[in-house]
């Protein structure tokens, strides 16, 4: 418990002591933690710059500007093409880095605000002294918090210090994007990484606060299977649909319904991460789908009440809900939609106004009131909405399709270049089948609707043409489980570090997929079969559930949810991405006994050189996703975006043809050694899923792999390269340090090949990028 108190005594007299004007101050009172404090507790912007530059000098940014201009200030806009400088002196490289920083800090602020809301609410409800107890399986309750802040939090109140620190750092980084603050692109990148680390920290705070506040299940791997898909909704019931990421109002709706025994009478469902966390709270809740399904869900008219909270919600959600007479309740100060604030109004009045249609939507900032209003509104509005149809008939689909002039304006504006007019042409002749593939590819942005010169409601036409598909969308997903248990880490720590488990693949991100959601499932399955550990979260976790085998089973029904080889771990909502990073930190601490406390550089160095993990953000969209990736990078974990990730404007690529970039200290001897290029890149974007799968295997190589471990990883890399590229990779000689690194079954032929290229065996070192971690005093300077 942290308290700060000041006591002032004007006069004190005792037998042994006299004093006047005595002031006693009591500062932070921390529980004793015998782990020594590392060099960077609660780091400011400059404190981890050296570490950032170690990474940035090896993985230089590749910038791909979306815009060659800057329109940020009133001198502008300025053309920065090539060598031009703007009115403030900025050049195009620095401008790209500034945009990345802006996006990173926006993501951190978004998660931070969410965490702050959650923390404040839980303190209000439970008090500061609520213990952080995650069950018997988790003693290292908040690895990121311990590592970054240098405090072992015991109670909810202990999280306020970390929250305050995060909020200050967000302000400092945000300030750096103002014109005239910062003038170097690499220092801007360091700030972007700093914002990313803050993002990771506040995600952990937010999830832990909601776990202990709402008593979400924790310390279990075998969470229940739950429903996902449009087809799981029971339209005979009133339906309340949630959209967003902040589970506070949803938790109160669930609480109210449980108390009043309504869980079997009203369908609760959701889009995006709120629904993940709702399922953690009560597994009867249904997930409709991820972000790509948002407008499709609203326009369908299935929901009697739509409740929005924050993040990734369409700005036109109110307009679309009103079209289908769904009552909308906004519940968060970041998404008010100019609705009247009814927080202090009587429940019955609000319900009456929504049911009668006097109000199409209301703003209620009290989650408890939302619980009551939403439930009663849904029950009363249901009979009035029986005849509401958001979707249209087959004849109406054909009529609209006949209006299409095949101008291809829809395709031109589509982020994934879907051939919509081909489907329209076929539909105009009565064949609606091509809309199935259109829907599979559609990311739900609705830009086609607004590009169409003939004003065809393309999204509605597409959904309506797929009525059968909607009804068949019934899948199973494993409920999110939150943090990884310490006991699981003990079980896999050694195999991960020594490479016997070939790697950890974290499939996260948004639903802006280049070629449909199925690719995420295919990637997951490829690595599950090869006994990698596969963790998933957010939109990706939902997409994976939608891929079924011939028996109709999803991967969640086929693979267990333990953090172990060949297992599929649904962490849960976007906030739970923090636990993937936390797992890597725990390996460094539990297995390798590295101190966590205020010691990010050493922990990140350990993870970078030893833990074969890669984060795959196959669908890229939000600033939150970018911020998460920046933080992941700072912790030494490489990232792969899907192709749309080029629109984040910046990648971090290594050059395997430049040995001078791969110089590393041998921590045992202090020698500087040129190691193999692994991981080869820090942020990479492939063009296709096939290329992604091959590269994921390669990005799991680590300098410290044992021979057996490297042998296994090379086996997978070579096998996948042959499977998807039809031939052997041409860089095996780079990754074979010794003969024993080569897969046994092809060792002879491979050895002959690589020797022909001049290969010679190398010593396997104890790697570190950080001079102070060299254990031998060789006068190595920092």
């Amino acid at each position, binding site marked *: 418990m942290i308290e700060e108190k000041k006591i002032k005594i004007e006069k004190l007299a005792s037998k042994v002591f006299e004093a006047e004007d005595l002031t006693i101050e009591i500062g932070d009172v921390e529980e004793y933690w015998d782990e020594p404090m590392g060099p960077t507790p609660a780091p400011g912007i400059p404190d981890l710059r050296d570490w950032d530059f170690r990474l940035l000098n090896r993985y230089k940014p*590749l910038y*791909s500007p*979306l815009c*060659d201009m800057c329109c940020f200030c009133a001198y502008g806009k300025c053309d920065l093409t090539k060598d031009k400088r703007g009115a403030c002196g900025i050049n195009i490289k620095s401008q790209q880095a500034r945009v990345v920083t802006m996006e990173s800090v926006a993501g951190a602020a978004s998660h931070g605000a969410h965490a702050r809301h959650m923390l404040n609410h839980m303190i209000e409800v439970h008090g500061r002294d609520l213990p952080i107890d995650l069950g018997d399986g988790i003693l290292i309750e908040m690895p990121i918090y311990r590592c970054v802040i240098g405090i072992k939090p015991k109670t909810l109140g202990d999280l306020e210090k970390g929250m305050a620190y995060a909020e200050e750092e967000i302000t400092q980084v945000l300030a750096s994007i103002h014109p005239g603050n910062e003038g170097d692109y690499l220092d801007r990148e360091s700030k972007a990484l700093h914002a990313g680390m803050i993002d990771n920290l506040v995600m952990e705070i937010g999830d832990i606060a909601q776990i202990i506040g709402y008593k979400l299940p924790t310390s279990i791997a075998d969470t229940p299977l739950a429903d996902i898909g449009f087809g799981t909704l029971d339209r005979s019931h009133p339906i309340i649909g949630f959209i967003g990421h902040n589970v506070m109002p949803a938790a109160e709706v669930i609480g109210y319904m449980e108390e009043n025994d309504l869980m079997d009478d009203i369908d609760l469902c959701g889009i995006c991460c709120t629904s993940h966390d709702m399922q953690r709270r009560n597994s009867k809740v249904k997930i409709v789908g991820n972000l790509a399904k948002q407008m499709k869900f609203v326009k369908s008219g299935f929901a009697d009440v739509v409740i929005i909270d924050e993040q990734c919600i369409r700005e036109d959600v109110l307009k679309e809900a009103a079209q289908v007479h769904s009552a909308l309740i906004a519940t968060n100060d970041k998404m008010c939609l100019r609705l009247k604030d009814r927080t202090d109004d009587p429940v019955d009045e609000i319900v009456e106004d929504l049911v009668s249609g006097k109000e199409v939507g209301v703003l209620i900032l009290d989650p408890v009131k939302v619980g009551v209003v939403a439930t009663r509104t849904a029950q009363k509005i249901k009979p009035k909405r029986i005849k509401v149809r958001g979707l249209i008939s087959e004849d109406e689909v054909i009529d609209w399709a006949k209006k299409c002039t095949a101008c291809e304006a829809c395709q031109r504006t589509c982020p994934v270049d879907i051939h919509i007019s081909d489907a329209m042409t076929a539909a105009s002749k009565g064949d609606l089948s091509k809309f199935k593939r259109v829907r599979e590819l559609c990311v739900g942005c609705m830009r086609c609707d607004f590009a169409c010169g003939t004003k065809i409601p393309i999204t509605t036409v597409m959904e309506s043409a797929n009525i059968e598909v909607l009804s068949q969308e019934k899948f199973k997903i494993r409920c999110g489980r939150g943090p990884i248990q310490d006991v699981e880490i003990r079980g896999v720590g050694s195999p991960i570090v020594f490479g016997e488990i070939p790697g950890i693949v974290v499939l996260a991100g948004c639903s802006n997929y280049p070629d449909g959601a199925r690719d995420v499932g295919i990637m997951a399955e490829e690595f599950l079969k090869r006994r990698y550990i596969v963790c998933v979260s957010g939109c990706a976790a939902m997409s994976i559930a939608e891929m079924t085998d011939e028996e109709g089973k999803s991967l969640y029904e086929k693979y267990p949810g333990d953090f172990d080889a060949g297992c599929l771990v649904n962490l849960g909502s976007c906030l739970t991405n923090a636990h993937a990073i936390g797992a890597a930190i725990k390996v460094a601490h539990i297995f390798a006994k590295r101190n966590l406390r205020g010691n990010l550089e050493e922990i990140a160095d350990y993870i970078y050189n030893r833990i074969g993990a890669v984060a795959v953000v196959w669908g890229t969209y939000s600033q939150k996703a970018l911020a998460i990736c920046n933080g992941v990078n700072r912790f030494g974990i490489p990232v792969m975006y899907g192709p749309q990730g080029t629109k984040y404007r910046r990648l971090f690529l290594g050059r395997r043809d430049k040995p001078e970039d791969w110089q590393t200290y041998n921590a045992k001897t202090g020698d500087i050694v040129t190691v193999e290029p692994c991981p080869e890149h820090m942020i990479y974007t492939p063009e296709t899923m096939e290329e992604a799968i091959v590269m994921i295997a390669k990005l799991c190589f680590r300098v410290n792999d044992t021979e057996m471990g490297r042998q296994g990883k090379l086996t997978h890399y070579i096998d996948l390269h042959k499977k998807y590229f039809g031939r052997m990779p041409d860089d095996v000689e780079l990754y074979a340090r010794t003969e024993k690194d080569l897969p046994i079954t092809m060792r002879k032929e491979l050895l002959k090949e690589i020797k022909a290229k001049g290969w010679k065996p190398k010593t396997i070192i104890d790697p570190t990028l950080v001079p102070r971690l060299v254990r031998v005093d060789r006068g190595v300077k920092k």
Partner: protein
Amino acid sequence: MNGLQRVKPWKSVAETGPKWGVAVSPETMARIIKEAENPLLIIGGDIDELDGKLLDFVKKLSKTKSIPIVATAHSITRLDDSVDATIMGFVEVTNVLLDPDWGLKGTPHDLVIYVGIEYSLTNMMLNSLKNFSEVKTASLSRYYQPNASVSLANLTDDIWAESLEKISERVV
């Protein structure tokens, strides 16, 4: 076709700024490729477009002009050993092209030709090269790429196929 006409990019995302490359006729494109001393051809995952004609064109161009190919994504699976091809990611090859000293065979390239990679991805890579290198670039995709030094205009499939045929005839 008048190469000086301002052609609109196929997708608005490609309009990154005021500097746009020139849309040229297939004849002009052929001349540019013919005059290049050390061109490089980058092909990608959409190489199967035009029902195989694009792939045939790429093979023919590579052989007749001895242009080495960087095959991105899984496009390598469409090429046999008679074609001089190296596998690299589309971002990897763009990244090394920013290095003025890099060449696939050791000599820097005076012309880099992109074809068969999705439009938006091609646009982003061309913009990297436009802003951060001195490399001259050409796009042979069916849609106008404003960030290429030179590009074909927005074409129908038929005219695109004809254009590629003209290029391969004239480049010898």
